[in-house]
């Protein structure tokens, strides 16, 4: 109930900002912050609530983006219908990789590695086969119309993203207070104990993986609509994977608002560093790395759990 009220307030505030501001800079900021939020939210469903740390979420992102592009370019399908296909395809990839990894009990760094490996395999495949445009990538012709899911201002994309982010908030809230969510967190915290209590870890993690992949796929599809271009490095390269996991970890894993806060904080940080150190390209990745180290060491609960982390540090403990 409290979640629902907070989500409504969030939608009203961000919606008012998106509709109220007219400057391109502000609208762009809202759009990109919501986009980063969506990626972090998607990662949080599997990583935060399921404890399965993927290092290759770009796999689902890229699958969504490419299906979105190919459905329109090769299939002549309407962009909105393509969005459905893209989300479905990403979910399917999630089911495949999840089934493979969880069937063989891959956890922790092994799960991170297999997701990374699959993302790389898909990147190389996308580079090699003709229907993904190989290294040249795929370009979407510019046809700005709501029907084509192309907007003439960032405002349209911001509102579209706000809708998907809200849906992700609702799903995350459901994970916090449902039977499935309780079982998923039980598997995260102690798989053997969960099994003894009648939970099937394979099915539980698999469903979380599919859910997470579907939202990541939506992120990829919307990325394509925003920039009308995708290539293998953007789609399946590590940058997107890192952005997704960093937002969730910095914000607070397994929380409702962590991904929102984390994505916003990182987005502000990267804007600031770009302005301050514009002459040093890549410095923002260095600063991202530092932020991650500090968060993992001193604030394992992220921004959303900052109060508790400060109390723990004050009492002299490292992690609690």
């Amino acid at each position, binding site marked *: 109930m409290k979640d629902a009220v907070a989500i409504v307030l969030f939608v009203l505030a961000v919606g008012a900002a998106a509709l109220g501001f007219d400057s391109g800079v502000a609208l762009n900021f809202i759009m990109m912050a919501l986009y980063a939020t969506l990626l972090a939210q998607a990662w949080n469903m599997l990583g935060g609530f399921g404890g399965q740390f993927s290092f290759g979420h770009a796999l689902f992102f890229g699958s969504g983006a490419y299906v979105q592009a190919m459905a329109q370019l090769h299939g002549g399908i309407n962009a909105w219908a393509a969005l459905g296909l893209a989300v479905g395809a990403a979910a399917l990839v999630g089911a495949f990789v999840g089934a493979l990894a969880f069937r063989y009990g891959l956890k922790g760094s092994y799960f991170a590695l297999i997701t990374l490996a699959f993302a790389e395999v898909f990147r190389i495949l996308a580079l090699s086969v003709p229907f993904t445009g190989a290294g040249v990538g795929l370009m979407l012709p510019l046809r700005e119309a709501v029907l084509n899911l192309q907007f003439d201002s960032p405002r349209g994309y911001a509102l579209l993203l706000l809708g998907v982010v809200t849906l992700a908030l609702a799903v995350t809230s459901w994970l916090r*207070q*449902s*039977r499935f969510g*309780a*079982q998923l*967190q*039980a598997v995260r*915290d*102690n798989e*053997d*104990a*969960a*099994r*003894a*209590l*009648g*939970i*099937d*870890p394979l099915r539980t993690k698999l469903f979380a993986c599919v859910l997470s992949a579907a939202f990541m796929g939506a992120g990829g599809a919307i990325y394509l609509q925003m920039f009308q271009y995708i290539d293998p490095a953007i789609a399946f390269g590590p940058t997107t994977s890192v952005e997704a996991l960093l937002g969730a970890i910095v914000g607070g894993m*397994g929380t409702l608002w962590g991904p929102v806060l984390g994505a916003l904080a990182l987005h502000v940080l990267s804007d600031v560093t770009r302005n301050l150190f514009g002459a040093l390209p890549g410095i923002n990745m260095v600063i991202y790395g530092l932020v991650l180290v500090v968060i993992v060491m001193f604030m394992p609960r992220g921004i959303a759990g900052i109060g508790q982390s400060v109390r723990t540090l004050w009492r002299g403990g490292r992690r*609690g």
Partner: protein
Amino acid sequence: MAEPLLEVRELSIAFGGLRAVQDVSLRVPRASLTALIGPNGAGKTTLFALVSGFLRPDHGQVFFDGRDVTGQPPHLNARAGMTRTFQIVQPFALQTVRENIAVGAHLHIAGRAAALAEAEAVAERVGLAGQLDKPAADLTVAGRKRLELARALATRARLLLLDEVLAGLNPQEIGEMIPVVRSIADSGVTVLMIEHVMQAVMNLASHVWVLAQGQLIAEGSPAEVTRNPAVIEAYLGPGTAERLRKAHAA
């Protein structure tokens, strides 16, 4: 004798050259409170793992409620009504006591509110009612043992396999825990417990099996078993029974 709730037939498993459990057979009657004892390393926990489905036996069969459940994964056993606890407690540390127990309750209750309410009722039964909102990580050892019990109980188990719920507790805590186990058994749940604390076994169990080096060496009432020379030697070393007998005679 009526059909037992749990029947184990000639169960065996080996890890490499170590025959951890060898040809163990036992029948646990319905609504009984029985115990499995034996020295450290006798294979008690391994036997529990075999029965509950965490391990698959090399030979032998497990029947629960007349159905062959040999090698059935633990979550299906739990759904059928057989739940184990862990000797080394396995709380969901980040979650509160209430949430921990609700995970068990969710096995048969879909609604969140109903599961949380059930968790409170179960906490009452094991004496955790005052600590429902604590994170599980903040509980004492005794509290965590109660939590293990509560979670298993919340699954509405018909057979509870309790792996040393008294280990690591001080005498006062043991004294407080014994009535809890007794009341669970009195409510109709069949309990098979692994236990080292003989005070509890003598107090609670109607029937005892003794496992040593993977084999059943004795069974009977607690009083019979503790007089059995083979059992005394298994615990205290070969020849001890004879020396004790002489010492008593002298």
